[in-house]
């Protein structure tokens, strides 16, 4: 993991600073790095928790989730059932991958694809005038309005984009 390697190397680098001013500057930079690292980890946990929570709720009620998918009138019933059994587990595993930082980029890619697909499908349903239950968070989201649903999806997407920036900023594989 790039961040940990940098942190481990930091004390050795610090010895190379000759003046106390440079050492202090490095210390400040390192503190800032630690804060950003902590914030990113918190964001990892928040995004992961959202997907794990949503996945568990839907996994417990696959029949209800199948009906929620079917209400979008995009897929045949058989495919709705298949997705109702499959998608919650994908969300759970991707969420866990974000937490344990294993298969991190793969999980981030899949979650980004999922949230974009959910958002587009919801927007399309609204345009088609369908009165749907989103089903994103099982019975919890049963009475969500379209704006609330859209705002939640966009907030999650924003979180994922920030995590992508982190991966890019590290310059190496995050896992």
């Amino acid at each position, binding site marked *: 993991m790039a961040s940990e390697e940098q942190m481990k190397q930091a004390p050795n680098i610090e010895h190379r600073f000759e003046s106390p001013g440079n050492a202090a500057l490095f210390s400040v930079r390192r503190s800032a790095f630690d804060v950003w690292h902590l914030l990113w980890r918190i964001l990892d946990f928040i995004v992961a928790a959202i997907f794990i929570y949503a996945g568990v709720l839907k996994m417990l009620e696959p029949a209800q989730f199948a009906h929620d998918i079917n209400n979008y009138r995009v897929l045949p019933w058989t495919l709705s059932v*298949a997705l109702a059994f499959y998608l919650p587990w*994908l969300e759970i595993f991707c969420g866990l991958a974000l937490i344990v930082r294993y298969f991190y980029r*793969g*999980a981030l890619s899949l979650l980004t694809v999922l949230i974009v697909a959910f958002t587009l499908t919801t927007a399309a349903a609204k345009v088609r005038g369908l009165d749907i239950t989103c089903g994103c968070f099982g019975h919890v989201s049963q009475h969500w309005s379209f704006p609330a649903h859209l705002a939640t999806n966009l907030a999650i997407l924003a979180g994922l984009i920030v995590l992508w920036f982190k991966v890019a900023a590290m310059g190496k594989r995050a896992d």
Partner: protein
Amino acid sequence: MRQALFLVALALIPGLGQAIYFREKISWRSPILPSESVNVDQARAWGENAIWVDARPDDEFARDHVPGALLLNEDRWNELLPQFLAGWSPGKKIVVYCSAERCDLAREVAERLRKEAQISDVFVLEGGWEAWLQKNR
């Protein structure tokens, strides 16, 4: 890409297990279990032994409905449920319908009648109001 494929494959395992576990509770062919649906001919054969329930919104019910049907929709559930229960007697079969095959209102009302009113003989009409109209034109 390889990581994403691995996660995609990994999620298949519990998904398949769950599909096997729930095989009796979810039909892969229709949103409504065959044991919980009825067609127009079967429902009409029940005659006086059936209570027809219209799960559509008020305005659609006001426009037209199955003769003798009771209005019970989710928009005014708390208000309409007591009226429905007053007209219901144990042993009678309940046939719930909404506008067409793909509407979900009838299934939801039927589900709530089973869960909240503890009524077991509740059936969803296949094809809904459109199917009834076709058979009764």
